[in-house]
């Protein structure tokens, strides 16, 4: 883990080394002060030597100035090193995530990746800065102060040694006990907040069932529980203060008593006694600091682990060594294909699929939820690799093609699709970054998107909000289709991509496909039977297997599933229109947008 993370320091090695060095310099300067102080008092004041006072005073000022210099530089280098480290971490993770295959992405949730790139990096940044600035400084400070004390008086310094030993044990005991408690209480606290979140998003259900009081009771109990656990943990923490203070005071009194005796006996000077007392504070402060570092490092170790995980993740899909850059045509073959999402799982999601789809054919796919329709089409553009068998595009195994070439020729409009913040034109140009505006308009027209785009005051330059929240579901889908069309693919796959588009527009889009891009192989997954009915052939999927693959007429005659779906939908006409915007849509959208944050 440390090796992986350490590798990300890169160009910030110099500040990373300089920071602790500067901190050591600062500590040395700081430690000189009490020593010089003693000299002023003993040799200056007591000897009545004003010259000495001024000389040593000047020396002290110089020391302070150097201390300031070292300290500030330490801060400057520390800031550079830690923020630079954070930048490199983010960059390395982001770049590695870009190489992830779909299987890799599935392994982490979106929220999981976002947390790693944001909160976890911030945690590490703070921990790294703390380590650079304090990890060396605090023990150094402790050691130097200790040495100075021994230098002044071996006998009295023994008191500190005892105090340090006692405090270390006490602090370690407290910290270890408390960290467990706090882990527990924070988990409970998070659960409590999760339940608030749940209530906020489900407020309509709560109110509809008049469960306000029930929820209040539930919350009160949970919050009582959190309160108790916090108290239990903090009770131990509050011991910290008195133990610390008590030790300091005991040291002061012991040193004062023993020191006074020694002064009277002549084995110690007043100045030295005062220096000793000053070092006392230094020693205990650095102990405190060390316990803080300990907590900080422990807290960030979970973050470090999560980041390392992403950095070390290897893509499960790689480009072949001598990739093929030429895709002859848009034919698709499945040859005894078995597929499962996890290699170790026992049951296949796709079972022995054999298919031939000719170039330029229009294929419809229907099947219930969980029948693996999406999985099937995702294999065509090699978003996942098959476990057994082969998938061929243009007659050649997809694993032999250059990935970029394959994915440019096989355009998939994903079921869970997103638009990105930017203008409509910019979004469309994801399909082809060099596309002229006319080409974009043509694609938009094909996808029946042009009509609504023109109604926006700013037309193609309308800004799309993050997540596409300012367009309706049907509009979003049409934009996504247009975006895919701009790739001028040999194979176009629509994965339930017109579900929010009304039936009439849906039909127009299909007509446009038929007329404008006849040579492109079109594979359309849909819930609506009307969307697939006029395809050349229709694939009926059931539990990961091909139930039938035939024309509409034949299926209607021979296939029970198809007939059932057809009857349930067509006898009753089909679907009413879902989307298209109007007044209440504002509230809907607001609501969706918020729901999406959860």
């Amino acid at each position, binding site marked *: 883990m440390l090796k992986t993370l350490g590798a990300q320091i890169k160009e910030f090695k110099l500040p990373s080394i300089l920071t602790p060095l500067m901190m050591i310099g600062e500590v040395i300067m700081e430690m000189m002060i009490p020593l010089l102080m003693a000299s002023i008092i003993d040799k200056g004041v007591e000897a009545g030597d004003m010259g000495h006072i001024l000389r040593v005073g000047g020396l002290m000022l110089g020391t302070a100035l150097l201390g300031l210099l070292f300290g500030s530089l330490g801060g400057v280098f520390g800031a550079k090193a830690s923020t630079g480290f954070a930048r490199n971490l983010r960059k390395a993770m982001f770049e590695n995530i870009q190489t992830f295959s779909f299987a890799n992405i599935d392994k982490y949730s979106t929220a999981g990746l976002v947390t790693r790139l944001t909160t976890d990096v911030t945690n590490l940044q703070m921990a790294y800065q703390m380590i650079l600035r304090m990890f060396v400084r605090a023990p150094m400070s402790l050691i130097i102060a200790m040495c100075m004390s021994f230098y002044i008086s071996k006998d009295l310094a023994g008191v500190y040694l005892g105090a340090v030993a006692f405090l270390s044990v006490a602090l370690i005991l407290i910290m270890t006990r408390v960290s467990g408690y706090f882990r527990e209480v924070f988990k409970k606290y998070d659960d409590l907040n999760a339940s608030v979140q749940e209530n906020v998003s489900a407020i309509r259900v709560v109110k509809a069932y008049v469960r306000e009081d029930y929820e209040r009771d539930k919350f009160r109990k949970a919050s009582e529980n959190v309160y108790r656990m916090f108290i239990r943990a903090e009770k131990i923490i509050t011991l910290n203060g008195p133990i610390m203070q008590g030790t300091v005071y005991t040291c002061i009194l012991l040193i004062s*008593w023993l020191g006074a005796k020694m002064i009277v006996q002549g084995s110690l000077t007043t100045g030295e006694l005062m220096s000793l007392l000053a070092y006392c504070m230094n020693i205990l402060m650095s102990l405190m600091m060390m316990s803080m570092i300990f907590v900080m490092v422990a807290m960030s170790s979970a973050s470090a682990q999560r980041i390392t995980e992403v950095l070390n993740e290897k893509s499960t899909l790689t480009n072949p060594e001598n990739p093929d850059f030429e895709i002859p045509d848009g034919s698709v073959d499945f040859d005894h294909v078995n597929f499962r999402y996890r290699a170790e799982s026992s049951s296949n999601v796709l079972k022995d699929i054999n298919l031939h789809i000719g170039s330029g054919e229009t294929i419809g796919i229907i099947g219930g939820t969980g029948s693996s329709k999406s999985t099937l089409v995702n294999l065509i553009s090699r978003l996942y690799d098959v476990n057994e068998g082969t998938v061929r595009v243009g007659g050649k195994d997809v694993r032999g093609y250059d990935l970029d070439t394959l994915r440019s020729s096989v355009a998939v409009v994903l079921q869970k699709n997103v638009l990105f913040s930017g203008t409509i034109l910019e979004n469309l140009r994801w399909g082809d970054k060099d596309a002229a505006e006319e080409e974009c308009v043509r694609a938009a027209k094909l996808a029946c998107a042009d009509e609504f785009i023109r109604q926006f005051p700013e037309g193609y330059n309308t800004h799309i909000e993050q997540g596409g929240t300012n367009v309706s579901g049907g509009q979003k889908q049409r934009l996504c289709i247009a975006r895919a069309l701009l790739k001028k693919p040999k194979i176009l796959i629509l994965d339930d991509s017109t579900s929010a588009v009304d039936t009439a527009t849906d039909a127009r889009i299909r007509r446009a496909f038929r007329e404008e891009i006849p040579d492109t192989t079109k594979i359309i997954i849909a819930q609506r039977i009307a969307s697939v009915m006029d395809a050349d052939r229709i694939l009926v999927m059931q539990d990961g297997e091909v139930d039938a693959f035939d024309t509409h007429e034949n299926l209607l005659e021979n296939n029970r599933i198809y007939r059932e779906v057809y009857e349930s939908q067509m006898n009753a006409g089909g679907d009413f229109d879902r989307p298209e915007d109007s007044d209440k849509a504002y509230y809907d959208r607001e609501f969706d947008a918020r729901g999406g944050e959860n």
Partner: protein
Amino acid sequence: MAEERARTFRGGPGRRQMGPRPKVENPGKLFKRLMGYVFQFYKIPIIVVVFCIVASVLCNAQGTMFMRTLIDGYISPMLVSGSRDFSGLLRAIFRVAGFYAVGVIAAFAQNRIMMYVTQGTLKHVRDDMFDHMEGLPIRYFDTHPHGDIMSNYTNDTDTLRQMISQSIPQFINSGLTVVTVLTCMLVLSVPLTFVSLAMVAVMVFCSGKLAGLSGRFFLAQQRDLAAVNGNIEEIMEGQKVVKVFCHEAEATARFNELNDALFASADSANRFSNMMAPVNAQLGNTSYVVCAIVGGAMALSGFWGFTLGKLASFLTFNRNFAMPINQISMQMNAIVMALAGAERIFALLDEAPEVDEGCVTLVRSRTENGQIVECKERTGHWAWKHPYPSRGTVEYVPMKGRVVFEHVDFSYDGEKTVLHDVSLYAEPGQKIAFVGSTGAGKTTITNLINRFYDIQKGTITYDEQDIKKIKKYDLRRSLGIVLQETNLFTGTVRENIRYGRLDATDEDVVKAAKLANADSFIRRLPQGYDTVLTGNGANLSQGQRQLLAIARAAVADPPVLILDEATSSIDTRTEKIVQDGMDQLMKGRTTFVIAHRLSTVQNSDCIMVLEQGRIIERGSHEQLIEEKGKYYQLYTGNFAE
């Protein structure tokens, strides 16, 4: 996963970095209100705490003064006289030890009590917020981003914790320390105190300058961080799309640009805040040196009777002087930040709750000798109970389920009318369907029946009585609602279904699940009905969640049902199976159905076609087909283009 979600709640330690102070209007009043809130629960503990603080500060000062006593009162005289009698010193040490002990105990007591005060107050705040929030109208949740509501419970309460447990006690402590130390210093030497004060002024000036600089860069950092985080969220959300479009290089380039900008501003912001500590420390040391030189010169010349012992004490005080002053400025920042949080919390607590001016309640009833009588047991019959306080009598009207809208106008924001002159009559046991495109106002109508919103014009009656006269609790209890957006709660499947009726037996739950056709998939779950659902049933499919929501409504057994796209995510074949259960459920109940699938609505008694908030067509399926209007167009998919 849960951990990740939760960690974003707390916002991570990054949030508490120093930044520019937020603006709070009328902080004094707010502070008073906050203190009043804390005081109502913890008056005596807080008074005790203040005493503890005073005691510990005084004891500490006593300890520091001891330095002088030690040198001037014992060591120097003994050195001069050569006496070896330490009994006086021993007594002095014991006396100081006594003071120290009192100081330690006082500090301990203060921390302990404050722990209870802080955690207790936070608990009260959370409970009050939640209590109040549950009573707020739906409108509140519509108009406030859920993230903002959440941060009341997380960030705002966290800053409050910081403030109550640390900032305020430390503020008092520092203030008192400054006063006592200053007094002691003045007693020791007036001129030296001025030297020391001058140095403090320089220190305050410098840290103010640095804080200003750093604050400016922190603002820039905040802005850049928001940009980076926004980009991360967006790209991670769309990572699969990025892959499909081979857009990795472009995405990376954009990200690197933002990331580098963040690096630049974060570097500057941290640089200046890192410099704060060494600058203050070395200025403190300089102050020490200056005082040592001036004091040394004074002690040497015996100026104003200044002695070596006094110098020693003074130098210690001088050290103790700078620290609390820095503390005060730091705590001021924290307090202002917490006040901004407190302001938001009070804003939530000040929101006007839903008002319920209704008096008519719904009771279980049976008929005895032709008279309706209220009863406790489930009879399947319900009655409206009208109290007439003036006459002291009660009247029972049988609950039938007749819902009538008359000339209803409605607007969400008071500006844009969403429903225009809607009139409709739902007779008991009828199935009324609403069709039309999104935004036509279908959901709005159902939201008016259960009074999630109140209408501006017209009347809605329920069994001939204005729904405003019915207690909301009873009104909503009489309506079973299945929403398109299915919300489940953390808990077992059984608990989730039982949410519909808390006293439902296990058999009732299973029966309801069977009715909704949910029983078979529930049994296939790892722990069946005891499977724990988290994150809104994240481990279930959307369709399965809808089946659970239907079961939940079924167990409630309400007289009137509202199904808002209740089966939209269930595939057509499964829906057919569920449909039987639904028909079973709807039997004998007035039902309002919103659906986009024709199969769901076509057997309705009356279908209302809505367009832009108006009912444009109404009638049975056959009638509407006959009319060849909008419904016919929708039904056949023939659009006049």
